[in-house]
């Protein structure tokens, strides 16, 4: 064996790759192919299915009929990705730079919710967000919210759920990237007068936060002026106290690969997620994953369900390609521009 390997050195990399490739072939390529074939079926479970290329109409039907759910999935997953970024970045930054000897404990805490099942974590949100639950109950008792106000069965609950469930997928890559930043670079930048931005930073932060709130408001038709004002206030405070020129010019660019990886790890699974929409939403918040689930398991319409899945894969591929082009693909493989 040893001599064989020595004589044919070229085998080694393939031998090392073999288990992974075999795994992917059996559990990804084959089922994906099977599904692709199924997307050109017509017929029914009872009478059997037949394959024909003329059944490409499965795709037109899928896209035609379910455009709203596709769009909703993209919006929800996008909103959740932005939110996870806004929450995860300060978190990762704090752990990396201020964590000290508690770094490992803090990182463990980020992952700790994963010790509970995905389903249980989501269902427990129903208890938290319940109409008279621990969050809304006291506020309603004080009379600050109308009696019929609810969070459950709304887009807010679904996006919050996705954000919560995917937070570690954003936090960990960002942490790894931020942790690698050489703090001496930041110190050098500060020496060169890249200090806190006052008052300009505050205004910039307020504008960004206000704009984000406005977009969310338009998407969900909320009374967004109030929301925008609130977000502007928070954004302003963050910009005023925390964002400095050295952060914008040094730390953030160096951590971009982590942000890129984190946003893909969040966005891609989130867009196909159906658990949050199922448990925290209602019929008006169903995502494309719910449609596929219903088509597959309730209607037994395997052809259209397969076509829907493939369309989703194609859509994700396009979105990710565009995103990668904008952020620069080399960010994925290099540790950053210096």
């Amino acid at each position, binding site marked *: 064996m040893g001599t064989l390997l020595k004589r044919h050195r070229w085998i080694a990399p393939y031998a090392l790759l073999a288990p992974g490739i075999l795994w992917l072939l059996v559990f990804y390529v084959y089922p994906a192919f*099977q599904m692709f074939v*199924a997307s050109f079926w017509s017929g*029914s*479970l*009872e*009478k*059997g*299915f*037949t394959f024909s290329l003329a059944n490409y109409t499965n795709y037109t039907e899928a896209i035609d*009929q379910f455009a709203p*759910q596709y769009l909703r999935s993209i919006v929800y997953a996008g909103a959740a990705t932005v939110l996870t970024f806004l929450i995860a970045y300060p978190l990762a930054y704090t752990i990396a730079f201020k964590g000290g000897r508690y770094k490992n404990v803090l990182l463990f805490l980020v992952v700790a919710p994963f010790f509970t099942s995905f389903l249980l974590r989501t269902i427990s949100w*129903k*208890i938290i967000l*319940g*109409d*008279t*639950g621990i969050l809304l109950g006291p506020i309603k008792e004080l009379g600050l919210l109308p009696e*019929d106000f*609810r969070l*459950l*069965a709304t887009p807010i609950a679904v996006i919050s759920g996705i954000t919560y469930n995917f937070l570690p997928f954003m936090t960990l890559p960002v942490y790894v990237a931020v942790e690698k930043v050489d703090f001496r670079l930041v110190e050098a930048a500060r020496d060169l007068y890249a200090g806190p931005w006052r008052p300009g930073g505050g205004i910039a932060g307020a504008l960004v936060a206000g704009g984000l709130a406005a977009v969310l408001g338009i998407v969900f038709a909320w009374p967004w002026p109030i929301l925008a004002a609130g977000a502007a206030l928070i954004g302003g405070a963050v910009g005023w106290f925390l964002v400095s020129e050295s952060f914008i010019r040094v730390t953030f660019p160096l951590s971009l690969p982590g942000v890129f990886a984190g946003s893909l790890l969040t966005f891609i699974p989130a867009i196909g997620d159906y658990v949050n929409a199922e*448990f925290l*939403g*209602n*019929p*008006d*918040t*169903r995502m494309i994953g*719910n*449609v596929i*689930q*219903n*088509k*597959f*398991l*309730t*209607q*037994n*319409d*395997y052809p259209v369900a397969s076509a829907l899945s493939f369309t989703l894969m194609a859509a994700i591929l396009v979105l990710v390609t565009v995103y990668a082009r904008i952020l620069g693909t080399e960010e994925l493989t290099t540790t950053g521009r210096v």
Partner: protein
Amino acid sequence: MSDNGTTRGLPAISRRQLLAGGTMAGFAAFLAACGTGGTATQAPSASESAAPAAASAEPSATASAEAAATPSAEVNWANWTYYIDVDAKDQTKHPTLDKFTAKYGTKVNYQEVIEDNQSFFGTIKPALEAGQDTGWDVVTLTDWMASKLVRLGWVEEFNLANMPNFTANIKDVYKGLAWDPEMKHHAPWQSGMTGMGYDPTVTGELTSLSAFFTPDPRWKGKTEYLTEMRDTIGLAMLYLGLDPTNPTRADADKAVAALQKAKKEGIVRDLKGNSYAEDLKAGDAVLAMAWSGDMVQALVDKPTLKFAVGSEGGMLWTDNSMIPKGAAHKGTAELLIDFFYQPEIAAEVEAYVNYICPVKGADEAMKALDPEIAKNPLIFPPDDILARLRVFGPLSEEDEAYFNEQFAKVLGVG
């Protein structure tokens, strides 16, 4: 002996909850369908592991059409989980089945293998298609699947001479279904009602299904429908004065229009599988389309809740025992089905299961066993309520696809 409600098995999990949780099992049907090429994969769980060699072991015992003068050594029964009595001390023992064995000397191979109708159908379909024994002598399936099997001609006809208790004790409400008018192919095992679950402290007394379609501030935004197509469409049809025992495509359109209108008016909070019971208890919902079996348990947890069958009617769903075509022990299977139509035996099962018993006289027998259960109108509904219940009619495969597609709109996925 029985401290009511808690010893009745594992009360937190009802048969319908399992049904909802088991949807992933439906995937098995897809995998089976992937092998469309004709290489019908032999029903894996059913005929191999669970009922091994049922057909080959004793081919001579095939009683087929003749009366079972001599019961076979074993009989194989596929049923749902938590659907028969268990011994309080030994969860693996079923006292009523032991009594059957004591009487006939037949060992009952009772397997809780049915998780949902569709995927179980997937496991027996190849054998039935090929005209072979499925390995099961009795299968217990819900109305719509039962009618499908009958329609396909995959069910043995009962020899009613073997089934005197069944012919005498089956309740009238179950008789005369379009898909089996003479009851020669199916024998109801357990039923459940679909009606209105509500919190009268918030909504006041409710008697009409119209509440589900009225934007009253007391329950607007706190009303839930069921994700089960036949229940929600059925109740909508009853509200509209249509007949769910004979559903047409035009009915589906009207029902869906009414449901969509109610959604638009903000009455409906969501459509739920079983979790409506949790929502009723938590106060997130105050009115819900509800299953009687779940409500038995919910009422224990929150006694202010109520279950009612609307004045327009309610739905009745039933899981039915049937003998699949080519079953090896047909005669014994008939004896087994009939055995559970003795009121005392039926009452014993009912003391464990929270559903509705199709057997006349079981309520009387229950009085001796547990008077509390005998009084429970959700388990032994009075005749005037039973008379208002309707069974959703059979649908052809094309019509079923149409109904499901229309209902997907109500679910928000169509």
